[in-house]
């Protein structure tokens, strides 16, 4: 089994990963909650639930609502805070053979400085994802990060303090031109961009006659948003030279193959994991079969030619013996 999970290795900046299949932030807890059905060591990395400088209680319930082929959430970044995370959650995942890709979010540059400095000493953390796209919080959410200038600054602040870790910037799709944000992240020194976080959306509870969620605005995920995510990944991959990690609505191997064709270096499985714990295995098998049937060595070779050649080597893979 561990043989087959070491397949199609990838690199993102200074970090390498045994395979390109990650768990998306917020959809895999801190890495061990799903261990019975999805051993974290089978993933290329576990992007952990976003942690913030202090613990957060999150938003009032209800926090979830299904929509056609989608899921609305208004979790509001409930998390234990970075301190408790590093103290209680990190080691168990590493001990289980999981690779932590730690997701962080903060409201100010100062807070990002502090978080980056706290993460820097941990050699067991190869990579950090900066969540600039949460629609469910007031400060530090997707609206604050809709400006290219802000994205560049946040990126530089974190990357300068984490030169040896892969720093990936997760972007919101709720903007006119996500490419501007991706370029800003690249400019700020990011090792990768991650696209997309959830689409801003809402629902109304007809019986109670009010918005389903207290904050009204919530984040839409799931298969419904896949075609939107695919376009964003396609556009970003054509415009930057750093790797693009694709996330949004993956429900089957075909979706992952499309992300590879659109230029993704890795993918993250999210909402569909909640109802299909077999998803990782299905993706792995489906990608392997497709790649082999075409006589290729790595799914990165599927990338179509909208991606400038100079960018193709961005996530060089080395065949493992």
């Amino acid at each position, binding site marked *: 089994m561990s043989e087959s999970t070491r397949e199609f290795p990838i690199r993102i900046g200074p970090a390498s990963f045994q395979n390109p299949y990650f768990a998306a932030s917020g959809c895999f807890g801190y890495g061990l909650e799903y261990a019975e059905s999805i051993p974290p060591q089978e993933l290329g990395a576990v992007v952990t639930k976003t942690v913030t400088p202090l613990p957060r209680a*999150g938003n009032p319930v209800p926090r979830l609502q*299904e929509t056609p082929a989608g899921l609305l*959430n208004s979790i509001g970044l*409930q998390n234990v805070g970075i301190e408790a995370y590093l103290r209680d959650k990190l080691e168990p995942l590493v001990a289980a053979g999981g690779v932590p890709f730690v997701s962080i979010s903060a409201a100010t540059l100062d807070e990002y400085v502090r978080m980056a400095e706290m993460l820097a000493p941990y050699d067991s953390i190869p990579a950090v994802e900066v969540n600039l796209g949460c629609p469910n919080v007031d400060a530090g959410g997707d609206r604050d990060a809709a400006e290219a200038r802000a994205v560049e600054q946040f990126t530089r602040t974190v990357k300068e303090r984490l030169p040896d870790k892969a720093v990936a910037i997760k972007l919101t799709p709720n903007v006119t031109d996500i490419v501007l944000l991706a370029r800003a992240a690249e400019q700020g020194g990011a090792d990768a961009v991650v696209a997309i976080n959830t689409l801003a959306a809402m629902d109304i509870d007809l019986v109670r006659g009010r918005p389903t969620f207290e904050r009204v605005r919530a984040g839409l995920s799931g298969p419904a948003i896949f075609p939107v995510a695919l376009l964003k990944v396609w556009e970003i991959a054509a415009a930057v030279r750093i790797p693009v990690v694709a996330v949004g609505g993956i429900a089957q191997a075909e979706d992952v193959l499309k992300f590879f064709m659109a230029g993704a270096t890795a993918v993250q499985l999210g909402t569909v994991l909640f109802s299909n714990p077999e998803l990782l295995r299905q993706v792995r098998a489906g990608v392997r079969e497709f790649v082999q049937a075409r006589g290729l060595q790595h799914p990165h070779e599927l990338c179509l030619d909208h991606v400038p050649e100079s960018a193709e080597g961005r996530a060089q893979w080395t065949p493992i013996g």
Partner: protein
Amino acid sequence: MIENRRLSGGSHLLRVRDEHARRDTPQSQPGQFAQLLAHPSQHLVRRPMSIHDEGDGWRSFMVKPVGPATRELVALRAGDSVDMTPPLGKGFPAPGELGEGPVFLVGGGFGVAPMHFMARILDGLPQAPEYRILYGGRTRNDVELDVLAGVNGEVLTSTDDGSLGFHGTCVDLCATQLDALGAARAARAVVLTCGPHAMMHALHGAVARRVHALYASLEEVMACGVGVCMGCVAKTRDGWVPICTHGPVFRSDTVFDLEGTADHV
């Protein structure tokens, strides 16, 4: 799915195959739930359903069609497939932990489902404790007595409109029952409840202080069912915790009458 039986009030009793299930050494506890979805389904997220019973090779659920996914479930026919998780969450205390006093199983609506399971297990004990099921609804139509078929214990019913059994809520009925016991015996009683949040909250207010312990099975919209998504939280003395892993069953004094929960309903 093995069987789909329509109950008297419009809910359905679904029996779903699970090779690990055992009648005499059940893999699940009353109060635990499984997440179900028709397969194939028009929906994305499996829906939590309390376990109504476990037999050799199957588990049963009482499903009330309240929305699209539950309507889809009750439309299934024997032979159709169902996507079902293993038993999840923490159920009611084991029979051995219920103490020596009388036990009241108070169910409202589909909250009676786990009460069936608990009663069936109590019935099977060499020395079954004294227990009663209190089953309430708005009208007689909401009280689907056939879901309790086969249970040995006494079943008392209540309806808000008095059309069946006790005229009033099952909270009132429970209080009346405790009154009849006298304070001393009541203080040794254990009450288990599952039903609408408002009902359980009222029950807590009415009886929690008079009995040994009150356990309530909470409900919240769920996605992952395993504590990952933080979608289904309840405020407890330990902060906001996922109902799906820390519950759904909680001691009522750990979840009710805390600051910030009053407006939950």
